[in-house]
């Protein structure tokens, strides 16, 4: 029995040391200098791993990466931030998180650091500064360095468009040449034209668009239509006043148009599609058009089956009220719970360097630095560079309020109910959305 008790004591000691001492040991203490960067698991993340090798070589600080697939990205890292976890020293957090992260003290405010290191936000594209760094919006309070510019764009099958039979049939049906759509109406025609058509003995479909229900998919998709039709988040003169802006007659038409595109021209089973489903549909040669973020375009261009000469890129076409596109992308922030803030800030300083930004773009990341984007050679540096530049000039972002997740959930539900589940009318969906958003802002203590 004594032996058993001894064994128990030893086992308890082992458990205590594993949980107690182990939990208090940071990577930096354990392995010299190592910091952890958290981001989504996607193509640009691989480019960042490659790029960061230069940082390690220069500073001697090791880099660890924590990449999570997009579908779990927000859940995983917001949990981490909300539980004051110190897993991430640096985080490339989504643009909408900035309000909550700033107000809840999860990100380190970078104004003093920028001033000390001579980093100026004037050196970055204005849309990315507002979208990724500032909270409150349009005030000089910076919580991140613009890291990865992104927006929703479109890809199309250039090789299909170039086929004589396609060109002839399209002209016969629509009375014009098939080409890159300039308007959403033209886009719909093209999508409808390809829907169910046989190409090389295979049935193909019109377009892959965002319809995902669980996270943010359908909102990121429908916004591209809503903005072009005149939807606005609130009255520019009276913040948070949404009646007649969110649910205006033109916004209703935009929502109807998106549903129409979903019903007429998407592949069967596309009721829950987001980024990866869009990529699958395009790469497998199922669709003629694909809505997706620019971040994926370098990878698609390199694809052996649909890349190269077979793929073309275009910006979100114009609608009746104008032309805009949904902002994607993220800024890089220092987590306030990090025990390695000095090293993390050192990384940000290094990342802001002009040469690093150039290499970042060359490796497949999207720089937000004017030194890269305003370079005369930039538009021709990649087949999608010109479109990216154009898109970044017309981006609009979702609410970045601390309650963004609730606001997003409400839109996901209302829009999916209408577009995919055929519940109610577009007017009812947007009226319901205004009602939900008002309730959320009321709970937040906003006055409107």
């Amino acid at each position, binding site marked *: 029995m004594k032996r058993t008790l001894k064994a128990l004591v030893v086992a308890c000691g082992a458990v205590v040391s594993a949980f107690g001492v182990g939990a208090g040991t940071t990577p930096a203490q354990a392995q010299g200098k190592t910091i952890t960067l958290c981001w989504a698991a996607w193509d640009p993340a691989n480019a960042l791993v490659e790029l960061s090798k230069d940082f390690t070589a220069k500073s001697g600080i090791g880099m660890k990466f924590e990449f999570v697939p997009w579908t779990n990205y927000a859940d995983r890292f917001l949990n981490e931030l909300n539980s004051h976890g110190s897993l991430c020293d640096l985080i490339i957090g989504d643009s909408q998180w900035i309000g909550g992260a700033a107000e809840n003290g999860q990100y380190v405010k970078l104004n003093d650091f920028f001033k000390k290191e001579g980093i100026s936000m004037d050196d970055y594209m204005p849309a990315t500064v507002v979208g990724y760094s500032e909270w409150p919006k349009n005030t000089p309070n910076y919580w991140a360095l613009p890291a990865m510019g992104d927006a929703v764009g479109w890809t199309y099958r250039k090789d299909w468009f170039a086929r004589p039979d396609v060109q002839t049939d399209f002209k016969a049906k629509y009375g014009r040449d098939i080409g890159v759509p300039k308007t959403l109406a033209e886009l719909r025609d093209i999508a409808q034209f390809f829907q169910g058509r046989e190409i090389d003995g295979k049935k193909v479909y019109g377009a892959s668009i965002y319809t995902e229900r669980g996270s943010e998919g359908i909102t990121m998709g429908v916004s591209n239509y809503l903005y072009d039709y005149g939807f606005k988040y609130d009255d520019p003169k009276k913040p948070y006043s949404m009646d007649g802006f969110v649910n205006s007659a033109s916004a209703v038409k935009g929502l109807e148009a998106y549903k129409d595109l979903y019903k007429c021209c998407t592949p069967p*089973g596309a009721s829950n599609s987001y980024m990866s489903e869009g990529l699958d549909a395009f790469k497998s040669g199922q669709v003629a058009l694909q809505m997706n973020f620019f971040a994926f375009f370098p990878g698609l261009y390199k694809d052996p089956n649909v890349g190269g000469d077979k793929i073309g890129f275009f910006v979100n076409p114009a609608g009746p009220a104008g032309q805009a596109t949904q902002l994607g992308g993220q800024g890089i922030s220092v987590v306030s719970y990090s025990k390695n803030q000095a090293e993390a800030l050192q990384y940000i300083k290094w990342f802001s360097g002009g040469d690093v930004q150039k290499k970042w773009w060359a490796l497949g990341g999207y720089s937000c630095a004017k030194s890269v984007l305003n370079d005369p050679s930039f538009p021709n540096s990649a087949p999608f560079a010109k479109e990216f530049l154009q898109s970044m000039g017309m981006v609009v972002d979702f609410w970045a309020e601390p309650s963004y997740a609730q606001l997003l959930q409400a839109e996901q539900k209302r829009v999916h109910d209408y577009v995919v589940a055929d519940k109610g009318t577009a007017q009812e969906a947007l009226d319901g959305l205004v009602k939900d958003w008002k309730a959320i802002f009321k709970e937040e203590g906003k006055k409107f």
Partner: protein
Amino acid sequence: MIPVPGSVHAMNELSASSRITYRAVRVRPGVARRIRGLSDKTLAWLFITPTIVLLLAINIFPLLWTIYLSFTNYRANRANVPTIWLGADWYQSILTDPDIWAAMQVTAHFVIWTVVIETVLGFGLAYLIDKKFRGHGLWTTIILLPMMLSPAVVGNFWTFLYQPQIGLFNYVVAFFTGRAASSFQMLGDVTLSPWAIVIVDAWMWTPYVMLICLAGLRSIPDYIYEAAEVDRASKWRQFWSITLPMALPFIMLAVLFRAIENFKMFDMVNLLTGGGPGSTTEVASITLKRAAFESWRTGYSSAFAIILFVTVFGLANIYVKALNKVKSR
């Protein structure tokens, strides 16, 4: 040989076990004395204390804490905001929210249909397997395979099986009905998706019900059937008068387990449909997860969790009472 109560064999077994118990009782005080004068009671407490502490720490305390939070405006992502006591506001708001009732209806549809299908099929399979035909062991193993898989795996591969263009399910339906395989989508259609999740759950958990029912069927002593045969009772009569009543407590137990489990179903449905299309398959636990870990309305979601807990606990208690009545018959 199955020991019949009152037989010599059973008495021998009983007396043997009594001897063992008696010897064990005789030995215990000596052992206690040897361990530094600890009494039996102290020793017992020493052994169960870690379990009780663990139980208090990971079950009782969180439950009490959740009850407290359900009366406040607390949000886990805004620790710096002062916590305000709201009384029963959240409970009132939840119980009058049509979206919550819609989620409860979806849950009820899912629970009722899965339990009915799994019970009927599970009992049917158990009845067949109990007949001990050649190779019944192999068939039992094959039938049990789905329940051995992780719900995450099941959710993922059924997403592929339901895929309208390449999914096997659609092709099988197309083969039997003559409809084009891509003409319907199980997961994207508001009418079909509630049934799509029922089918997957039934596929996965019918073997579990079968296993419990099989245990029930095998617990029925052969001599009862032999007596029925002597009385020239038909097979049909034997089924209704012997098999079903004697297996009923087991069937009811399986129903209880499956109903509780499916009432809180999350992982599989989340992977299959994410609650969509729209909110067609948004079961209560998905609504709860969204409120708790996406909106971070901790107080609100605590109240909702308590409501769900009370519902399951209350229904389960009523059911257990009914089960006890059946057993005592």
